């Protein structure tokens, strides 16, 4: 006797055809978030529209006589970007993420895309993979359409874990992209892979010629930020009796 087929349960996909998205990038493993988002902002000629003031501002930078904070908001058409130039430590990551969600709600953001890196000890530079995680089912389609493998198992720690948890509990769907990278050194190759993946998702062509020319310099110029980021990432780990992994 045949068992009667149950009605398929398909959740309605209600993401708009041309959604308003927010891309979030901050210093983390391999500096993927910062390097890729900085270039996307540059390539798409996004406009600086504001800052996140609640962020920890022990540092500002001056450009053309204007004082600017380290966490800034950019916009172009229906794409917003929040870029941090300083690592977000454990004490501030919750406030920071809540500010991002608050901003997203006020600006009718349909989905948040958080870009970061994941450590792969022997990564193949010519074949780096970007894995995706979604907080809401309706974004699963984006992974499928863009041939992004799903992050199936593993551990995410540090600020990324807190951000992910808060995003998961928020009403705004989020897509988290983790690209295989060198955790300890700036990894422009992995950042480039992230840009390629993201450009497909947001359906914008991003010319990487200028980025490719700067790869070696990006590694040189970002040494200090990488060092600062590792200090923040390591400070959040449980005290360990293991020998220090970083020599200064």
């Amino acid at each position, binding site marked *: 006797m045949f068992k009667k087929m149950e009605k398929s349960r398909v959740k309605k996909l209600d993401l708009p055809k041309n959604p308003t998205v927010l891309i979030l990038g901050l210093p983390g493993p391999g500096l993927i978030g910062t390097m890729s988002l900085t270039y996307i902002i540059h390539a798409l000629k996004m406009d600086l529209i504001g800052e996140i003031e609640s962020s920890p501002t022990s540092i500002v930078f001056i450009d053309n006589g204007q004082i600017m904070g380290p966490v800034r908001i950019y916009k172009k058409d229906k794409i917003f970007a929040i870029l941090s130039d300083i690592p977000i430590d454990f004490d501030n990551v919750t406030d920071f993420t809540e500010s991002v969600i608050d901003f997203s709600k006020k600006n009718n953001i349909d989905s948040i895309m958080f870009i970061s890196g994941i450590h792969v000890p022997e990564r193949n530079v010519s074949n780096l993979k970007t894995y995706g995680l979604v907080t809401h089912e309706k974004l699963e389609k984006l992974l499928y359409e863009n041939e992004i493998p799903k992050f199936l198992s593993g551990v995410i720690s540090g600020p990324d874990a807190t951000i992910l948890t808060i995003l998961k509990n928020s009403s705004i769907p989020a897509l988290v992209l983790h690209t295989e990278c060198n955790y300890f*050194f700036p990894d422009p190759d992995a950042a480039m892979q992230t840009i390629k993946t993201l450009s497909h998702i947001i359906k914008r062509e991003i010319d990487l010629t200028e980025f490719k020319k700067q790869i070696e310099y990006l*590694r040189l*110029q970002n040494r*200090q930020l990488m060092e600062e980021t590792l200090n923040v990432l390591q400070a959040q780990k449980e005290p360990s009796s293991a020998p220090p992994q970083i020599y200064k």
Partner: protein
Amino acid sequence: MIIMSDFASFIEKQMNSFFGDSLFDDFIHKELVPLVHLKEKDSAWSLEVDLPLVDKKNIEVKSSANNLTVKAKLTKSFCVSRGNVLTEFEYFKKTITLPSGINTKEISAKFKDGILKITMPKSGTGTKIPIE
């Protein structure tokens, strides 16, 4: 509003603003300090040194009883501006204190994708401790 007419200058300006007074580069000897990562494995220590803008032939690794020094010449000089002073760097240099129990004669090195990987085998000798 920030005008990003050129990605490279934007990055440079940004990094110099936040971290311009580099905490670790040697401005007197005009030597950049590379990022390094030391990891302990079962039978060896692994030291990775990030050396962008460097050719394999221009890397020098020297070990003594307690220290290991990596010096590498850049293929192009790298300039860092601090205020009105422009410093031109031509070398990377880093000296680390070796972990104890290293067989210094067996240290080997490999350079791939701009990263120097130095493997430092443990000597494997020690005092056997009886178990009661």
